[in-house]
């Protein structure tokens, strides 16, 4: 297998950035005499966790398409698990959730991986969303029925449907960019995540005016603007790795920053409405998997479709039902 050299530059750049942050963290720790403060400790945990996350993502990239779909299947599973754990769940929803975890989630990823674009886009919003209330109604508990059903649907929509648009980027047919889509996926994840990091850094150092103190007390205008502009500058400078021109790379980075920010804000509101501070404790320093992925949830489908429009691709035609799927269906019908 020959790796794209441009992809290696991207990964190499991230490794250099991480090494720098490890260095800065250890300098900060050494400067503080005695016990390091809570912020510094958290920073150290965060950086260590970043090494792990970049490692897992990088290895999946090197292994190729199937590994990446497997990785996102696992991430959807973990994210949905955190979501369901925090949501109060009556006994009547037990079987519905078994279906969601063990049938709906893998089937959706099967349609994505196939790839069968038509089914990928409607399987969850149509079939799964019809099935979930039916199964819960059959269980016979009417207490808070609409609330319970919507909660499960929201979890599936964000953790499974939205997130799965990231590996789908690998299938986006772009003329002159064939076989290089892994870089596009890397670009989206890098820009969205680094936007979080820059917003955190700017917010911590110069943040004063809170944007939504009730929803997400850590988000400030200074953080958003400073972090956002830095991110757009970085995204523009990486245009060579994308199918975009420098200007469209800047616009796409800006869209990722805004969608990432709003995704994080909304998921934070959901989290607080449930009464939690973190989604889980899966990633030391960050909280749960969803705390790390929240900004990708809205950014992924928006970026996917905008890129599709930009290059005028007819996705339904380019990714139509694969023949082996048709033969399975013919066998049954």
């Amino acid at each position: 297998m020959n790796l794209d050299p441009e992809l290696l530059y991207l990964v190499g750049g991230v490794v250099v950035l991480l090494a720098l942050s490890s260095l800065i963290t250890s300098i900060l720790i050494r400067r503080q005499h005695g016990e390091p403060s809570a912020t510094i400790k958290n920073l150290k945990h965060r950086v260590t966790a970043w090494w792990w996350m970049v490692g897992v993502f990088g290895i999946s990239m090197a292994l190729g398409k199937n590994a990446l779909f497997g990785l996102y299947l696992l991430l959807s599973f973990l994210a949905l698990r955190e979501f369901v754990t925090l949501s109060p769940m009556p006994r009547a929803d037990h079987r519905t959730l078994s279906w969601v975890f063990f049938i709906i989630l893998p089937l959706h990823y099967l349609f994505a991986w196939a790839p069968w674009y038509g089914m990928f886009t409607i399987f969850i919003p149509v079939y799964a969303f019809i099935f979930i209330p039916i199964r819960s109604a059959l269980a016979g508990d009417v207490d808070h029925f609409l609330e319970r059903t919507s909660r499960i649907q929201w979890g599936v929509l964000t953790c499974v449907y939205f997130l799965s648009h990231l590996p789908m980027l690998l299938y986006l047919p772009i003329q002159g960019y064939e076989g290089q889509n892994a870089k596009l996926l890397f670009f989206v994840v890098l820009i969205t995540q680094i936007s979080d990091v820059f917003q955190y850094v700017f917010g911590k150092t110069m943040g004063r005016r809170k944007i939504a103190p009730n929803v997400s007390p850590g988000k400030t205008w200074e953080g958003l603007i400073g972090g956002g502009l830095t991110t757009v500058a970085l995204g523009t400078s990486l245009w060579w790795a994308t199918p975009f021109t420098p200007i469209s790379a800047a616009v796409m980075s800006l869209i990722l920053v805004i969608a990432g920010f709003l995704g994080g804000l909304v998921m934070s509101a959901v989290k607080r409405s449930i009464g939690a501070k973190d989604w889980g404790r899966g990633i030391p320093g960050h909280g749960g998997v969803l705390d790390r992925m929240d900004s990708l949830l809205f950014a992924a489908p928006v970026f996917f479709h905008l890129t599709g429009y930009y290059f005028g691709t007819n996705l339904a035609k380019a990714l139509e039902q694969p023949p082996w799927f048709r033969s399975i269906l013919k066998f049954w019908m």
Partner: protein
Amino acid sequence: MIQNVIAQFVRLITGVRLNHDHERQTSARIYYANHSSHLDFVVIWAALPSHARKRARPVAAADYWNRGPIRRYLAGKIFKAVLIPRGKVTRHDDPIGMMSAVIEQGSDLIIFPEGTRSEDGKVADFRSGLYALAQLHPQAELIPVYLENLNHILPKGEFLMVPIIGNAIFGNPCEGPRHGETRHDFLLRARNSLLTLTGHLPPTTQAPCSDEP
């Protein structure tokens, strides 16, 4: 080896973390926990560090774990469960004697003093078995373990799991029956020290478990 793999797998599925808190033990232990799922003892077993896991033997229902070759293999070879007949206790059955013999052989016990799985996650009153065991083995440490969310992962009467994140909270050892303490009072105190792990009891009403507050 296979035990470690299974324990790792159980922790991955249920989200339960390895319990590092306890130092190496000096005496026998009786872990006692709330009961809401068939997974309960598996989860406690998986949450123990491997040296403690090797010693721990869960007490489980014979009729459930003897059904079918897979369950029998798991109960016998993997978990080394002490299988106790449920329902009618005849003259020949001596559950306390069986459990007591296990401690004498140098193993630890995992028991569920409520006797049966709770339907709604609430902790029922304790049956007397814990008292009898604590009296027979005054040197044994009684360690409360609160299991959180297990009734959501695999509730009573369901056969399919939902992979919700569970939790096994290990408490400090609870002092055995004190001089002059009635069975009822001891069981109440033991149950309270389990409940304090949940935050269900406000701190002022916490029954002191060890002598320090």
